[in-house]
């Protein structure tokens, strides 16, 4: 008999309630925060930011969401915690004074206690309850509960008591964060994930090629969708920032306004008006092709309009950029003095890429530039794997685009690769792509510029010779005759040759014209002679005909005379 399965109704009863952590990025990847009234397990090895994450969760709750919190510390004393958090801008003492936060340090003495018979964690319960009641807590952090295992020997009792504790927390409707260190092949050393299983967040701190990155992953989240990736996060002066790649939607408005490139001829190549505002521009080329010059022009043009420009220079110091710009007739020092131009020249290797990104975010938020110049982005490639660089740049570009900030990135291409393949391949997200290249011809290097793409505008497809002069960048038409593209001196030579040839051609034409004239004349002379000959022949023939007629007449006359003489009867 076939079993008839009861149709399961897929209607969700009520979506799980969540509380915002207020931690930048974490609320995005958890799609709204942690499960309300449930414990969340935060695991990770020593020094990966568990305490900070949980404290920030409490502080934000107390400060911004009117949810007081309790911090049960097994590892750090109240004063230590307060001091540590002070350096991150959290004033715990003040929150404690306002009865918004309670910190309770619980000392676990190791091995100084004799166990005689059964016991429970009644003291702990009372203490937690007391703290909760004191501030009317909605949130609680227990950091880290597994310390209990080192102080007490009877694991069975402990496990039963922990189960009771978590149930109790749930009954109280407290949103809890429980921290734990990972064990051998398990999430936590003593397997407490068994009891706290509504939401598990794994923190990780690893060092690749001398650069450290912290990562966060939501391992599970019962009853909710969540981002499943590993998200990098950083700890800065403002606490934790998680950087979800997808946190910024792509549904931003785009501008139809153009802004000048700073190079008139380049503007002319792009619909006559320049880049789109808020678009991303990629300038690629091998070393020394003039990428930075284009970037400097861009910065100059921005400041000329009275707009702020942020110049991220990872390869050169601000002073050097100012000097280099001066050599091509751009006075960046003036703009820097007026505060329109700001340089930021740190290498991402210095702080790690994620920190670098956050630093950029922060500067952008504070300085509010209209244009960001990133010269060069290839320096990022030296820090981490291509994939990471790629995702970081995507995030940066998304971020800038969503803010309507025009960004120009230069990217070095190295020899041996296709010129169209930059070191950091982000061309697909870029709106405009300028390609600079070196052309070697007859013992000379010249630069060429072409627009590989420029979305949403009618741009020139022609290559231009790219000149870096003391008055800035100039573009001139490359020689495009006789199926050749020539630049530099070769172009000049070719042009001279052209002129010479043209002269020669003109002379040749004259010569041919003269020849034709001569031909015509001689032919006409010949025609004349022939005509004269013909005329004389005609004369002759006419005379002959006359002669014959006369002769005929004479003959006829003679015959008549003869007939008359012979008495001919023919008539």
């Amino acid at each position, binding site marked *: 008999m076939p079993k008839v399965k009861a149709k399961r109704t897929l209607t969700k009863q009520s979506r799980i309630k969540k509380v915002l952590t207020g931690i930048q990025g974490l609320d995005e990847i958890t799609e709204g925060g942690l499960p309300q009234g449930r414990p969340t397990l935060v695991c990770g090895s020593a020094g990966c930011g568990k305490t900070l994450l949980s404290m920030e969760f409490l502080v934000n709750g107390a400060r911004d969401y009117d949810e007081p919190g309790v911090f049960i510390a097994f590892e750090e004393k109240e004063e230590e915690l307060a001091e540590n958090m002070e350096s991150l801008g959290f004033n715990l003492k003040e929150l404690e004074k306002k009865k918004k936060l309670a910190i309770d340090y619980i000392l676990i*003495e190791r091995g100084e206690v004799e166990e005689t018979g*059964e016991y429970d964690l*009644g*003291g702990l319960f009372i203490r937690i309850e*007391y703290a909760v009641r004191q501030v009317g807590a909605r949130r609680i952090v227990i950091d880290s509960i597994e310390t209990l295992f080192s102080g007490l020997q009877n694991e069975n009792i402990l496990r039963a008591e922990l189960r009771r504790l978590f149930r109790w927390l749930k009954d109280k409707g407290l949103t809890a964060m429980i921290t734990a260190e990972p064990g051998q092949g398990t999430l936590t050393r003593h397997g407490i994930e068994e009891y706290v299983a509504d939401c598990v967040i794994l923190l990780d701190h690893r060092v690749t090629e001398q650069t450290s990155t912290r990562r966060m992953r939501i391992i599970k989240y019962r009853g909710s969708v969540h981002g499943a990736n590993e998200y990098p996060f950083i700890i800065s002066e403002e606490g934790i920032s998680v950087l979800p790649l997808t946190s910024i939607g792509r549904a931003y408005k785009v501008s139809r306004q153009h802004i000048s490139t700073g190079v008139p001829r380049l503007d002319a190549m792009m619909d006559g008006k320049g880049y789109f505002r808020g678009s991303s521009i990629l300038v690629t080329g091998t070393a020394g092709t003039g990428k930075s010059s284009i970037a400097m022009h861009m910065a100059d043009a921005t400041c000329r309009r009275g707009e702020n420009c942020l110049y991220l220079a990872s390869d050169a110091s601000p002073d050097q950029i100012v000097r280099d710009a001066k050599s091509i007739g751009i006075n960046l020092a003036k703009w820097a003095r007026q505060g329109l131009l700001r340089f930021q020249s740190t290498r991402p290797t210095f702080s790690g890429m994620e920190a670098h990104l956050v630093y950029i975010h922060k500067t952008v938020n504070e300085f509010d530039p209209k244009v960001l110049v990133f010269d060069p982005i290839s320096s990022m490639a030296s820090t981490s794997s291509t994939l990471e660089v790629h995702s970081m740049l995507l995030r940066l570009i998304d971020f800038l685009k969503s803010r309507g900030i025009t960004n120009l990135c230069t990217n070095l291409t190295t020899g041996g690769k296709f010129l169209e393949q930059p070191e950091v391949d982000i061309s697909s997200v870029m709106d405009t792509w300028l390609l600079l290249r070196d052309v070697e011809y007859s013992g000379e290097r010249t630069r060429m510029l072409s627009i590989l793409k420029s979305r949403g505008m009618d741009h020139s497809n022609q290559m231009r010779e790219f000149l870096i002069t003391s008055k800035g960048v100039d573009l001139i038409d490359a020689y495009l005759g006789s199926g050749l593209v020539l630049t530099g001196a070769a172009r000049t030579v070719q042009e001279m040759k052209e002129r010479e040839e043209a002269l020669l051609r003109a002379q040749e034409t004259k010569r041919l014209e003269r020849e034709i004239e001569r031909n015509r004349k001689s032919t006409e002379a010949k025609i004349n002679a022939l005509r004269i000959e013909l005329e004389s022949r005609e004369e002759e023939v006419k005379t002959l005909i006359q002669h014959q007629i006369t002769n005929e007449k004479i003959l006829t006359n003679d015959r008549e005379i003869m007939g008359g003489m012979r008495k001919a009867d023919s008539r």
Partner: protein
Amino acid sequence: MSLTKNENYVLELYVTGMTARSTRAILNITKLLNEHLPGRYELEVIDLFQQPSLEKSEQIIVTPTLIKKLPLPIRKFVGDMSDAEQIIVGLDLKPKAPE
């Protein structure tokens, strides 16, 4: 009973409410103390439910907890005090074996 002969014992027993376990612990310890230290001890039973703020200074998280405050050194015992032998040794109540 040599060294500890003239000293008074000050003991505190922390419990949480009058549960079966608490009662058992109280009974066990008073019985033991009456046997070994008749008239030479002060035992204070503290119910944490009544004085939650007190625990902070004493760091009591496990109940029942027995603290021997005097004579020094301070000793701590947790559990329902059912293992009399262990407590006797821990409180140093038993003279060393004569051998």
